[in-house]
């Protein structure tokens, strides 16, 4: 009983203390309800692991092709697996600012690619430039970078590219046959196209075409390094070794000369020739390397002639031509009976590694401290001058570069160069060069480390979101994409991965930077500037010039000045408030 009394005493003290504490249950529940109401659900846009980043540049100047409508037509068996970077599909995709990001169906993974590489044919179409098709192949789940150098039909081009646009006025007999041969000089008398006497021009439907001919012929001289750089992409991919057997073979073509000819009569494209046909002729440099013979060319060497299949970009074997000579030197000539792009090439194929192993020798890029970088790859083949190209590559972490054009039994050197260092940044390549006698048929890794001058360089950590102007909406969109940025005064864009709205830019103090992002056929552009504010503060100005149809078009946003951080790291949170209609298109 004594124990119970003692217990009851202490319990009385306990409950008295409890009852005299203020009851805050109602207020507490209200606080929790408010906190729950403020909860947001973050929904990321899809992250595509496999895609293609295209850059379209002028072949001569290397400048991005901007200010013109540029569309990329995608054809081929795997075109159905290609989408824009918000997952929409079309027959063609519009580039802006000279770039375009496409993605591959997310169901296509590394296991699928291992046995079914994605193969598409792409044709850029832009007014004033040649529409050359090329195949793009994807073997692994990465972002593949493709730089397409376009031939200017009315301006200047690399020395090895010759453009001839002429109006030809043949006379025809009653059967539609040309009465005389008409010669079109492409590079003086060195390279010519002859519409032979007795030729009937026909359209794709088989109609006979008569009248004045608008002829556009572009010739690519393989001896010119810059021209090689252009045609390497065009000559990569599947080839068909037998005109009557559509089976494809993987390999590389090494050019001895390429023609891109287009003839039209009254706006109708000439597709085939009956009768005599069209004769193509070009001089062959006496020191041109013949990979079939592993020596320079000689009279009597055969060079296969190929035409390009329009929809797939595949090169189809047509015939063997023979190198001849006259007083002017060596030359190739042959007659064709349909119009396409025509190419004299030696084929290096994958046969037990005799010519060119599969996969090709390749370099894996291992980047540290940089999102992407522009790199010049200077290939120098021992004993041969100017035939192998200086390649321009944009490298990303996990990206790689394949070299499918190494001839057998040759050695040489690949050197890596930062073509234009950005303000405050220097790229270090390790190793700085590779002897490709060692690289052949193997994979090498090149480490690329960015060294920054940290004096005035800041890591600006961006956290981007988009939300609806509808206050009831609790969804926050976190974009996943690639962003591109560059100093306003610099040509090349740098790519950085925007992951769930977050990325880091390395920005030089006081240097205005352009920022660019793609959302399908729309693009968003802006500028970002970090500058001093007073003695010890920084001011960040973000000027979005969004182009999301009816979306926000922003004026300059000056973020509140922040104390100059000792570690040079600045955090920027920016939430775009979009109209409900635009916001809903992003969900």
């Amino acid at each position, binding site marked *: 009983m004594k*124990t*119970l009394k*003692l*217990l009851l005493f*202490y*319990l009385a*003290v*306990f409950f008295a*203390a*409890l009852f005299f*504490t203020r009851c*805050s*249950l109602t207020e*507490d529940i209200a*606080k*929790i309800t*408010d*906190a*729950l109401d*403020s*909860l*947001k*659900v*973050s*929904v*990321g*846009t*899809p*992250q595509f692991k496999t895609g293609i980043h295209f850059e379209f540049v002028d072949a001569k100047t290397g400048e991005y092709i901007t200010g013109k409508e540029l569309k990329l037509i995608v054809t081929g068996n795997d075109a159905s697996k290609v*989408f*824009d970077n*918000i*997952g*929409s*599909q079309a027959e063609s995709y519009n580039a802006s600012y000279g770039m375009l990001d496409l993605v591959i*169906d*997310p169901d296509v993974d590394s296991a699928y690619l291992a046995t079914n590489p994605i193969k598409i044919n792409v044709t850029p179409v832009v007014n004033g430039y040649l529409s050359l098709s090329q195949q793009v192949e994807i073997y692994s789940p990465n972002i593949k970078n493709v730089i397409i150098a376009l031939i200017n039909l009315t301006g200047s081009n690399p020395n090895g590219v010759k453009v001839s646009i002429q109006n030809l006025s043949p006379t025809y007999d009653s059967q539609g046959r040309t009465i005389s041969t008409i010669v079109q000089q492409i590079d003086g008398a060195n390279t010519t196209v002859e519409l032979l006497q007795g030729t009937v021009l026909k359209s794709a439907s088989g109609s006979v075409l008569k009248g004045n001919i608008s002829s556009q012929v572009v010739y690519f001289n393989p001896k010119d390094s810059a021209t090689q750089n252009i045609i390497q992409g065009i000559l990569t991919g599947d080839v068909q070794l037998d005109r009557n057997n559509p089976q494809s073979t993987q390999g590389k073509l090494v050019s001895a000369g390429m023609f891109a000819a287009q003839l039209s009569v009254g706006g109708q494209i000439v597709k085939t020739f009956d009768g005599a046909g069209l004769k193509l002729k070009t001089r062959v440099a006496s020191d041109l390397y013949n990979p079939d013979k592993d020596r320079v060319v000689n009279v009597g060497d055969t060079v296969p002639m190929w035409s390009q299949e329009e929809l797939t970009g595949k090169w189809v074997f047509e015939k063997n031509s023979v190198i001849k000579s006259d007083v002017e030197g060596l030359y190739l000539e042959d007659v064709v009976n349909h119009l396409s792009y025509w190419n004299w090439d030696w084929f290096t194929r994958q046969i037990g590694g005799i010519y060119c192993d599969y996969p090709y020798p390749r370099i894996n890029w291992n980047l540290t401290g940089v999102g992407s970088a522009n790199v010049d790859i200077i290939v120098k083949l021992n004993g041969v001058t100017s035939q192998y190209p200086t390649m321009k590559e944009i490298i990303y972490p996990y990206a790689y570069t394949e070299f499918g054009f190494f001839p057998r039994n040759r050695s040489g050197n690949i050197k890596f160069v930062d073509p234009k260092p950005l303000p405050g940044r220097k790229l270090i390549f390790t190793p700085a060069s590779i002897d490709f006698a060692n690289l052949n048929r193997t994979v090498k890794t090149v480490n690329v480390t960015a060294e920054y001058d940290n004096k005035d360089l800041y890591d600006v950590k961006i*956290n981007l*979101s988009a939300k*609806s102007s509808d206050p009831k*909406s*609790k*969804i*926050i969109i*976190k974009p996943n994409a690639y962003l591109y940025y560059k100093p306003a005064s610099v040509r090349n864009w740098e790519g950085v991965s925007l992951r*769930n*709205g*977050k990325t880091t830019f390395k920005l030089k103090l006081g240097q205005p930077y352009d920022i660019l992002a793609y959302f*399908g056929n729309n693009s968003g552009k802006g500028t970002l500037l970090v500058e001093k504010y007073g003695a010890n503060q920084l001011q960040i100005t973000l000027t979005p010039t969004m182009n999301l149809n009816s979306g926000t078009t922003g004026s300059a946003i000056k973020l509140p000045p922040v104390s100059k951080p000792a570690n040079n790291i600045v955090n920027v949170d920016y939430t775009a408030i979009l109209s409900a209609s635009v916001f*809903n298109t992003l*969900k």
Partner: protein
Amino acid sequence: MKKLVSLFLLSLVTFVLSAQSSTNSARSSFGVAVGLSASTNGLGGNVTAVWNDKFALRLGYEKLDRSFPNAFVYQQDDFNFDVSPRIKTGGFSAIVDWYFLKSLYVSAGVMVTDLHLSAKIVSADPLTIGDIEYSPNEMGEMNIAVGPQNKVAPYVGLGFGRNISRDHRFTMSFEIGAYHTGSYIVDVNGTELFEANGDPANQESINNLNETLKGISWSGIYPVVKLGISYKIWKK
């Protein structure tokens, strides 16, 4: 929070003082019992040792892990989400029982709690972005979890019956109590399209909720209602 801690300390002092004052009158009777329990902490077992008829030390483990697949649909904006709650609780406990009457006792001790209340949230419908349709599986999932601020939590309770019989082999007990983990902590993470929910930089609203919970005195209290039986396996 401070008030609750004060109350807990007060009750602990009460418990100890009372225990001390009653030790003198306790009858020495050492014994060991094994028991089974069913409670809001799950099903479990315990070993109880008693060194007199007033005090017992009880070491136990209980576990409850139950999922409720697609229990309900939550609608937000244009999205419908299937919500699958999961209750996981239990843990190890070390508790001293003071029998101030023959069949009435108070308990105090600590619990290493496995408390984890969660909900897996997946889209109920496929989502088409552009021309690509994502199945709910491809969209990933979001997980919301409520856990304890402190895994080691003080426990107090009041019980009827005994956890070890005084005069027989079998006995039963009924106990109500609570342990206090400091506060409930909400955590959110996600995969695929919902991955950003797990990013600390995007958790302003979750942080706000957690701060609110930490400011609420009863946040972190987990109630315990327990029914137990025991069998005395050794007595001296």
